[in-house]
């Protein structure tokens, strides 16, 4: 079991989900898997937080959802990035880089 420190940092979840959806529309479970694999198990998101975030993003209008059949023939809710979601992702990415750069500078202080 991953420890709680591996849980995703609050506030960054939205950005990461938007980023993954920018690659391709996915269902919720797929997003969780992608997140874990691409971060090489460094990041994990609890289902409650994941779906909470997804529904919030839908409400904000950055993500839209639709029902579709998966390759194994099951019905699943898929999520896709909207145009305003794309803009949001750009803003969040830029903010993150600025923030991370600042943190790195401080950590580099001797």
């Amino acid at each position, binding site marked *: 079991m991953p420890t709680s420190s591996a849980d995703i940092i609050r506030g960054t979840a939205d950005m990461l989900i938007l980023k993954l959806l920018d690659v391709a529309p996915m269902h919720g479970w797929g997003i969780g898997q992608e997140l874990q694999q691409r971060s090489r198990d460094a990041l994990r998101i609890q289902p409650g937080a994941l779906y*909470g975030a997804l529904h919030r993003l839908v409400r904000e209008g950055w993500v839209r959802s639709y029902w579709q059949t998966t390759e194994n023939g099951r019905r*699943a809710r898929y999520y896709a990035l909207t145009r305003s979601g794309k803009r949001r992702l750009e803003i969040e990415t830029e903010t993150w880089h600025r923030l991370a750069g600042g943190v790195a500078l401080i950590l580099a202080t001797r």
Partner: protein
Amino acid sequence: MRQLLSDTLFRIRALFDRRAQRELDEELRFHLDMDAAALRSRGLAPAEAERVARRQFGSMRREAERVRDAWGIALADEFVADVRHAVRQMRRRLGYTAIVVLTLGLGIGATVALFSVVSDLLLRPLPYAHADRIHVFWSDYDWRGEEYDFLRDRAGVFQHLAAFSTNGEPYRPNAASADGARLLPFVVATSTLFDVLGTRPLLGRPFDSTEDRPGAAPVIVISYGMWREDLGGDPHVIGRRIIVGDVPVTVVGVMPKGFYFPTPDIRAWRPLALDPKSPSYFNGYLTLLGRTAAGVRPELVSSDIRRIARALGSRFTYPAAWDKTRNPYALPIRTYLTGDVRDPLLLLLAAAVLLLGIACANAASLILARTSDRTSEMAVRSALGAGQWRLARQVLAESLVLAMAAAALGVAIATAGFRALVAVLPLGNGFGETVGIGWATFAAAFALTLAIALAASAAPMRNLLRNGGGAVNRERSEQGLHRGTRRVHGVIIVSQVAFAVLLVLGARLLIRSVDNLRAVDMGFDPHGVSTYTLVTSDNMSTDDQRQFFGQVLARVSALPGVRAAGITNRLPLRDGGYQGPMGIEGRPDLDGTNRPNSLYRTVTPAYFAAMGLRVRDGRGIDSTDVMGGLPVTVISESFARHMWPGQSALGKHIYSGWSGQMESLEVVGVTHEARLTTVTGQEPFAMFVPLAQQTSISGGVLVVRSLTPPAALMPAVRRAIAEIDPRVAVARIETMDDVVAGALVEPLRLRFFLTLFAGIALVLGTIGVYGVVSYAVSQRRAEFAIRMALGASPRRVLREVVERGLVPVIAGVAAGIIAALAVSSLLGRFLYGLGAADPASLGAAAGVLLAAGMAAALVPAARAGRTSPAEALRAD
């Protein structure tokens, strides 16, 4: 604003959108299945994979709830969860919760019960048609037959006029029974009574104008209660004959259920035959009442009443001392029936509402403290998007649970304690039987409870909604909550203390008032005395009665433990009036219409010893004072002093009786002044005359002084009476102590309730102050620690905390005193020997509250003074 609106709309939609729920469930189910499939593909057995997936996923339900929570959807099952949560929270603080629920319940219970009584007695329609048109004339039980007959033709705005009086005779529902007869209390009235009241009998008819004439065959209209209980609800009761006194009487009507007149203990109505040839035609013993025509305005009624008084004055001559025409008025019948109980009832209801107010303040304070305790938790959760709605809902749920528990308890208290409450309320004459808790009252209790829940959660909810916004900063939110909390706490304490001051003051005033009443010298000794009211039938001759009384006295005096037994016509402090005009020897100035009135008490020789009435001059009534001997009387001290100032009254004469046949009585003794009519107020003159010298006797009260406790003696006396003559009813058995207590019953009962309420109020107020001060201390612990580390003395910290804690208490005491002064005139009428604005009592009430507030503040203050610097670090 737009954001808030669309947010709200989304939530409302989500709330009703069942499809959204189903889709969420399906989505989560899919997720779980995929997890399980992935585990299976790694080689786990299907069942095991399902189990592990489920564990990793957490309970589906909880996850769904977490998601929904972020939506902010209030589902019914979430509400249940909220309620469960609330119950859990309460169980964690069981002591305080118990106190709040208990006191709220008590407040609700007392208010509901008292409100039921008030609404039934003071608001429920009277059992008469258009009762607002019925008015009762002044001078209760004081009108003469000749006056009624005179007024009948001059009734003016009164469509119908009636005269009545109350009476009672022995009645044995079951003649075969071995029990002695019991008393049948009834009204004698002119046949017009039924026109005035406008109520038709359930069965049969009222008696009519051919039946209220001298010599008419005796008839009776009976109450529903008498019909059901004594006559078995016989459907053919009309025309049946029952024996009242010794006379067969025909039942002509049964009144409907719920009808009463004038009081619910009256069981029947009989015709009053006014006979100008009878001496009683000139006695004042009647009450007059009339019904006005429809649409007559109140001003018209009072001006017509004045006209009636003038007419009376022109026809009859009234002595200056009791001129009936001087101050005429007509009372609406409701005031006449319930005027006496109205004020004490409203006072008690007000006290119960005050108590409820304090209990509400306590509940609000509890909920506020609970919310504030969880500020950090709430701030974090709100930052995580849990939404202030969810938190506010939780606060509301807690208040609702608290209020519902209290309501359940309150209704239980009101229902279980209702009869007991009614029994100790200063009602009387059977009015207690007519009241009950109705559905309206339960509804009122429910509404009240909801209002309490909302009121109690209003302050914390407002704080939450104001500070719990999405991007909340923990520090800021906490500060905001605390500032709001402090202000609300201040208001709560001020009102709580003010209410408590009012209740403590009320209790204090009544305690002192009752002490004053108790200190009054009754002039007789009620301890160890039992009394038996004997009712004989009207056609038992005076000689038979005298003989019967003689036998009773002989038998009872011979009972072991009995020291003295006497008979009187009226018991002190219970049986009131019966005064008549007297002529005084040597005072020609007091003749004619100026004759003084005196109470007229017929007694047997041992009555003085039995009652403990002391003779100060001369002698008491003697066994030699019999018919044919010198007619004698023993008079009261004030009577003697007033009539013959500076001389001995002994040997003087008093003339008594009705015009034409005056009888001369020689004064042979003077008693110490005794309280015969009221505990307070001016005692009328009194004279005692020998029973043996009376030409007409109608019943009497047996008074027995014994060494054995009165209660132990009662069965033996009752048996003796039944054995001598089973036709005589023992209407009432009471100890003289109870009779005296009965005269003080209203102040005693008010004192009981106010003391109880005040005690509870004091406890609640103290808890409130304690809670608020200790909360403030816990909030400022870090500050205290730092200040003490920097050299502030513990004493200084302690003083500051106490001072701060006392500010709202002092404000509350001031507000309470101002309120007390404002309502002092309302309380004044219940007091004896002191005013409602009595400075000593005000000071005492203020002192008690200040002391309680001080004590409540000292405990947490002492804790503040002991704060160690290390705690400063831990606190943040």
